[in-house]
């Protein structure tokens, strides 16, 4: 009897533990989203942990229960973005479509996120790539953008295997692809582009595919 009671207590405790950890994760994501918006509007260095806590109506002390410092938060955010983009890319990579169609879908996906979540791409381009000193410890090389880069690698590798893309150094191809997309989103952010990003998908897909194909 005691055995069964103990087992049900353990099950209950595990369930509560899981719920609490899910709740903590949801809260973390809320903080990340709020931080992204504040970084985009006020700038990374001008935004403090108390600013983020205030926007979320949280105490500063409670904020530190989730992220020990702004640097830790900065690294968690880039990992969060990498996982978010990586999952979307993985879905495209797993589709049974041609390399050219995949190219188009990646361009479309990237621009769509730049439109509906501009703060996310903004963080990637303006904070992660421009403030490497923040990301020195724990985000060496591409560790914190691993999910995203892995999927881009798989897109290239499968394209080469299929005989569609030219075999070349990864970074030559990566720079061409992501530099181009990042540049367009940057121009859009500066209000320089006369049209919406969506209007460029077809031309940009054609340009990238032509540049990368055999």
């Amino acid at each position: 009897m005691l055995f069964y009671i103990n087992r049900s207590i353990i099950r209950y405790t595990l369930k509560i533990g899981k719920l609490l950890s899910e709740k903590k994760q949801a809260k973390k994501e809320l903080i990340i989203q709020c931080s992204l918006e504040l970084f985009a509007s006020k700038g990374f260095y001008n935004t403090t942990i108390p600013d983020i806590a205030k926007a979320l109506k949280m105490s500063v002390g409670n904020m530190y229960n989730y992220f020990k410092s702004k640097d830790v938060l900065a690294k968690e955010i880039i990992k969060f973005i990498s996982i978010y983009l990586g999952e979307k890319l993985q879905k495209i990579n797993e589709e049974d479509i041609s390399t050219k169609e995949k190219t188009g879908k990646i361009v479309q996906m990237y621009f769509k996120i730049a439109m509906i979540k501009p703060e996310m791409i903004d963080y990637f381009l303006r904070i992660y790539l421009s403030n490497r000193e923040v990301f020195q410890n724990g985000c060496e090389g591409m560790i914190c953008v691993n999910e995203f880069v892995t999927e881009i690698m798989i897109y290239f590798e499968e394209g080469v295997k299929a005989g569609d893309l030219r075999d070349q150094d990864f970074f030559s191809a990566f720079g061409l692809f992501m530099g181009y997309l990042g540049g367009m989103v940057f121009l859009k952010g500066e209000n320089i582009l006369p049209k919406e990003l969506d209007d460029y998908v077809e031309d940009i897909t054609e340009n990238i595919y032509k540049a990368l194909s055999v």
Partner: protein
Amino acid sequence: MKKLQVLWLTALSCNGNTHSFLNYPYLEQFFENFEFIYHPSIDSKYSLTEIVSQNIACDILLIEGSISPDIQKADVPIIDIINKYSKIVSKIITVGTCSSFGGIFRQSEYKNVTGLHFDQRTPIDKFKNIKEKTITISGCPVHPETLANTMYAIKNALNIRVDEFLRPKDYFAYTIHNGCTRNEYFEYKVDNHEFGEHEGCMFYDHGCQAPYTHGSCNKILWNEVNSKTRVGHPCMGCTEPDFPKHNLFTTKKNMGIPQVLPLGVPKRTYLTLAGITKAFTIDRLEKKLLDD
């Protein structure tokens, strides 16, 4: 002590396995346990003509070399000799990659060149009634200790568990990577290799197939001394059904990713690990090991 009677039959072969076997370090002890009724290079009781014309009592048939209907020994088709002796013996061993999978002679002008039970990876039915008796010891050449130890296992009536290509799991469940002295360089993705030197992993640029080749070369050393990878030469995958391949000293890559990944490692897992290890430089592994 009762010696097992052994017939070493050579089909389409370079005799490399015969030579490899002569390097077995314990031949004297071996001959206290086994006796060749015929061997192409070792004095034996019968001549080849007697072997093909009579039915000599025998326990183990060793076949070296690729099988082709065109090959004859002492004017008798090799296929007929195999058919005759496979009924007499209790066990058959295909010695080396040629008799196991066809090997390099598949590229010769002989027609229908295969292994005894496999044409590379494809099973063939020509000798299916003797498949249960057969053990594959692939390799180019065969590892003498793997061959001898398997023969001892037969003599001692041990249960020999085999893989899908009939290779004993005791020796072929592992990859050649197992026991490689360059594992640190593999783990941290440091190629930095010059042929013949101690440093560097040869998987990334120099064509090493050890992480996806089955065998025990780095656990049971050749001549009890060395292995290809230890001495600074890439593993060429010689125990595998599709041996030989081309460009054996270069790793085929697609946009920087090796075309063939370590056995059983999914691409995303490999790339994730590669991304992490590539982010760090381990100074110790960038330097020469023995120089000051």
